[in-house]
């Protein structure tokens, strides 16, 4: 045990905490029927669904107005979500869950699934994030995709992404959620492969879908297990009965859900698709990394708190996956020269923080969601900023060809800087508050986890400073014919909004608001540290400062070569190769799989079919008969036989019916 941080004191029943009875109830989902503005819940999903259908079916005929429709519907959904949020704020804490059932989706025996939506404290935050940040990304895309003749299709697919993600977070049943879950997979497949005339984009899209399907398999099995165990898959039914199930069952369901979460949230061991997913247009990366997709796994674990509550082993597995991924992603982020890939590594890492927090149970759920929201702000900010840089640099992504862009792209630079300060956890910025809380909770749980999370913060500071320096500061390393220019207002205004949110996002924690808000859904548990939280915060800031300082020392003092040096330490080489994740997949799954498939194809034609043909030949006495079989001798015989049968039957028919 750490000499500094003693055994955590896990005790939720302090004066501030929830009512004891409530905690015992296992945070059952007990929504009221939808009325008032909540009777319009379906519209939140339907609006972008309609525009997606219009744009995808209309194609180029919607060229002049398609992007406007594509932006209008997510924004309308956002407004609707905001009205619902305000309405929920006015209600008392235990009356903030509202369910709307639109129609019965699937019914067979006792298998009953409603196409229904659940608006509560958790899902409404996601609705606002998805449609709010998503809406800003839509607006930005008007400028970013202005020259692409397939822009209407792009907007249609963006809308589809929003729809799928909204179904995922609003579905009141695990199967409805699964509809959105796989819908997100489809939307990401389409968008990652948007430029599918490039082999690399098409391959990345397929990889994302297939790796996600591996996770989906876990999710699907979890849903089946819930049906077999509880006879229902609705949040309401499962949460009410979960405490009755055996720990072994809950552990199995929890681990299967974790597999699903690993796929969508790009957690180790299903992380490999995320870095390749950068083949999509940059707004897609922003959408995948900030507002949708990768947050799904965190949502799933948080929503399933009633499962993990009774499955400590599964919860620990979530913590381990989160910890490994947060370090894994951070290490990858250090070695990438492609600005989008460096940011992608950071997403893996930050989602790792959220998973870690969610794995800690009621002590961490609220902080996981808090970090998810602030991350949504600053990661969208960073990705769209990177897109703005690429826009200026003729789609160059190699940071070794950037440098000194600060003065040339002032708006991009300043907004990107806000995102940067937020992600490294500069005191006062959004990420400072949310990451601090997670590291604190990690230390309270286990000092190994705490140290890992702390280390991650230091590495984050290093690689993000590296991105910042290589892109906006240091010396010019541009290609000859590049003339960078600031992006149009339609792109910079979303950046400014996101930059402001990156600065002030921490306000959500003001007076512990977000913790209190989520308590009825996820419960609450106070952790106590052996040392003052202030001391820990100071330590975190110090580690971050060291990370920043190291980056300055490494990059500012030395000349950055325009091409990446080949002779590097094994550590750098491993990080550049994504810690050999792909190589492992290839050796363990892909190659044996291809070998198996090839041998089966051979065996099927030569083995099973060969036996049948061979037996035919043997019966005939010689292989010459086999050839006759193929040239028509037996065929005419069989035909004659068949015609005979037909004639007899017809005659019988005629006689008997006549």
């Amino acid at each position, binding site marked *: 045990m750490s000499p500094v941080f003693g055994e955590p004191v896990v005790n939720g029943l302090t004066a501030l905490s929830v009512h004891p009875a409530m905690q015992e109830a296992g945070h059952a989902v007990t929504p009221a029927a939808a009325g008032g503005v909540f009777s319009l819940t379906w519209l939140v999903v339907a609006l972008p669904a309609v525009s997606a259908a219009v744009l995808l079916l209309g194609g180029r005929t919607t060229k002049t107005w398609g992007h406007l429709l594509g932006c209008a519907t997510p924004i309308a959904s956002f407004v609707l979500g905001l009205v619902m949020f305000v309405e929920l704020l006015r209600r008392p804490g235990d009356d903030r869950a509202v369910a709307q*059932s639109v129609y019965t989706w699937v019914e067979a025996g006792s298998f009953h699934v409603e196409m229904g939506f659940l608006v509560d404290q958790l899902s409404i935050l996601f609705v606002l994030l998805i449609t709010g940040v998503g809406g800003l990304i839509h607006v930005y895309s008007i400028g970013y995709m202005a020259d692409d003749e397939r822009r209407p299709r792009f907007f249609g697919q963006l809308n589809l992404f929003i729809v799928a993600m909204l179904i995922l977070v609003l579905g009141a049943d695990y199967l409805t959620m699964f509809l959105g879950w796989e819908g997100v997979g489809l939307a990401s497949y389409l968008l990652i492969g948007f430029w599918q005339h490039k082999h690399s984009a098409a391959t990345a899209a397929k990889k994302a879908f297939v790796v996600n399907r591996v996770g989906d398999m876990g999710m699907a099995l979890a849903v089946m297990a819930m049906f077999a165990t509880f006879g229902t898959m609705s949040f309401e039914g499962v949460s009410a009965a979960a405490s009755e199930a055996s720990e072994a069952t809950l552990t199995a369901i929890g681990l299967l859900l974790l597999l699903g979460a690993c796929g969508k949230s790009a957690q180790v061991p299903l992380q490999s698709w995320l870095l390749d997913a950068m083949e999509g247009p940059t707004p897609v990366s922003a959408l995948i990394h900030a507002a949708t997709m990768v947050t799904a796994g965190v949502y799933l674990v948080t929503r399933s708190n009633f499962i993990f509550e009774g499955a400590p082993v599964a919860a620990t597995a979530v913590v381990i996956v989160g910890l490994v991924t947060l370090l894994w992603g951070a290490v990858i982020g250090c070695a990438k020269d492609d600005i989008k890939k460096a940011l992608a590594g950071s997403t893996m890492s930050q989602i790792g923080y959220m998973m870690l927090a969610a794995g800690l149970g009621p002590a961490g759920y609220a902080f996981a969601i808090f970090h998810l929201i602030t991350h949504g702000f600053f990661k969208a900010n960073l990705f769209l900023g990177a897109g703005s840089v690429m826009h200026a640099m003729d789609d160059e992504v190699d940071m070794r060809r950037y440098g000194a862009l600060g003065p040339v792209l002032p708006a991009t630079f300043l907004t990107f800087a806000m995102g940067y300060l937020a992600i490294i956890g500069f005191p006062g910025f959004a990420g400072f508050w949310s990451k601090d809380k997670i590291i604190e909770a990690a230390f309270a749980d286990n000092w190994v986890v705490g140290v890992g999370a702390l280390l991650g913060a230091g590495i984050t500071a290093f690689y993000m400073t590296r991105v910042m320096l290589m892109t906006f500061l240091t010396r010019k390393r541009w290609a000859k014919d590049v003339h960078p220019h600031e992006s149009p207002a339609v792109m910079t205004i979303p950046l400014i909004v996101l930059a402001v949110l990156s600065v002030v996002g921490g306000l959500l924690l003001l007076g512990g608001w977000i913790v209190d808000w989520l308590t009825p859904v996820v419960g609450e548990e106070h952790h106590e540290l052996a040392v003052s939280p202030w001391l820990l915060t100071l330590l975190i800031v110090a580690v971050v400062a060291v990370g920043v300082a190291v980056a300055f020392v490494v990059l500012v003092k030395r000349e950055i070569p325009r091409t990446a040096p080949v002779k590097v330490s094994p550590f750098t080489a491993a990080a550049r190769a994504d810690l050999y994740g792909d190589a492992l997949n290839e050796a363990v799954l892909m190659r044996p799989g291809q070998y198996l498939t090839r041998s089966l194809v051979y065996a099927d034609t030569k083995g099973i079919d060969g036996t049948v043909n061979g037996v035919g030949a043997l019966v005939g006495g010689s292989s010459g008969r086999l050839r006759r079989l193929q040239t028509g001798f037996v065929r005419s015989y*069989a035909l004659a036989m068949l015609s005979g049968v037909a004639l007899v039957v017809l005659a019988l028919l005629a006689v008997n019916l006549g």
Partner: protein
Amino acid sequence: MSFPWLTVLGAVPLLGALVVMALPRRSSAVPKQAALAISLVVLVLTVYVATQYDAGGGMQFEEQRTWIAAFGAHYAVGLDGIGLLLVLLTAILTPVVILASWDDAEVGRWSVNAFFAWMLALEGLSIGVFVATDVFLFYVLFEATLIPIYFLIGGFGGPRRSYASVKFLLYSLFGGLLMLASVVGLYVVSNDAESGPTYLLSELSQLEIGETTGRWLFLGFFVAFAIKAPMWPVHTWLPDAASEGTPGTSVLLVSILDKIGTFGMIRFCLGIFPEASTWATPVVIALAVISVIYGALLAIGQNDMRRLIAYTSISHFGFIVLGIFVMNSQGHAGSTLYMFNHGLSTAALFLVTGFLISRRGSKLISDFGGVEKVAPVLAGVFLLSGLSSLSLPGLSPFVSEFLVLAGTYTHSVPAAVIATFGIVLAALYILIMYQRTMTGPTRAGLEDTPDLNVREIVALAPVLALLVILGLFPKPALDVINPGVETTLEHVGVDDPEPTVQAPAEAKGAGQ
């Protein structure tokens, strides 16, 4: 007796086939238009019958006449939920196939008239198979369906059509022979009973059959249906047959005719031999799970698109058989719905790849690349059809596949876990094919590939629309299926397993 609707449904396309055959051969347009018109009349009649169908009313529109009194054979037909769905599938797909095959018969060995006449004949016989409530009548129609498909493959197929059609015929005749033995056996058994010989399903299902006899007779039926479905290891005729026929022929073969196998399992194996069916459950489930995985792996390894789709069907039929033999409501409802959905999804895939193949004259995936750029509508339709085949939620096959898996899970967790691997393999076989044909830079020689024309879009649109509508709103189909499932399971004498943990009653289902 009321109006003989089912006889009319079967007779219209059969008579239509004769009319098309008799039309003058000078112009190829007339027989096509006539065939399309006749198939649309059948569709309208079927839809009318469907609107008159009472979902909870059991066997309906029954007709019965003694045919061969000495055998106890009757001309007896009737319609229940599963029959209605499959008749609807036949009636929907036939006009679609005729429209999609508009130009496919010109290069055949025989006349255009013959091609479309055989299609109509097949439609009539298939409807007959799905409504027959007399085992002897079923057997005769079952064998008779071989004739049109044999001529369609042998007369209008690809270069290896002779091999493929004979292989198909021999496999089918072998299965038919086993079934014939069982049909004769049934005569013997029913002749011994007091009521005298009968082939009426309603009477056979009440017949007391000895355990050993029942199991032998069951096997005869089951093997014939397993070949038809087809299941591993009696599947090898399908890839050849499906690859050599015209796309339309393959649709009729795989989407409709093969369903006779799984339809027969429910109606005759479970209906007449409930004890033997339960006895065979472990082996059949094992074979079904092998089919799911084996078919999918083989599909991944194919370079011929048509063979690939044939292997995906072997995987899908594995799911259907699995759902039938796990013997619970979810499995049965899922399987029955799966038959309908697989028919739509496979039809879409066969037809759209057919359109693609006709544009280049090659079935090989490796001969294509980058088609999306020059023919985006074709690519979009291809992708949507493919996504339905990999059971993407939101498209109809998902509902049926998930029901089958959920039903399997409550029966056998290992079987469900292995079968669920099929969903990953499905993503691979579809997306690899899509990637290699549609994405990347456009291959030389494909730059001028025309996109889908109006006829092709009109042919496919109803199928795609149904895939989406039934994916989000499968209730109309499930409402028809569920009462029949209950009856079947009651007849077999099995109950759904109870959930291991009982949720409080008031908390079942959100928002109710």
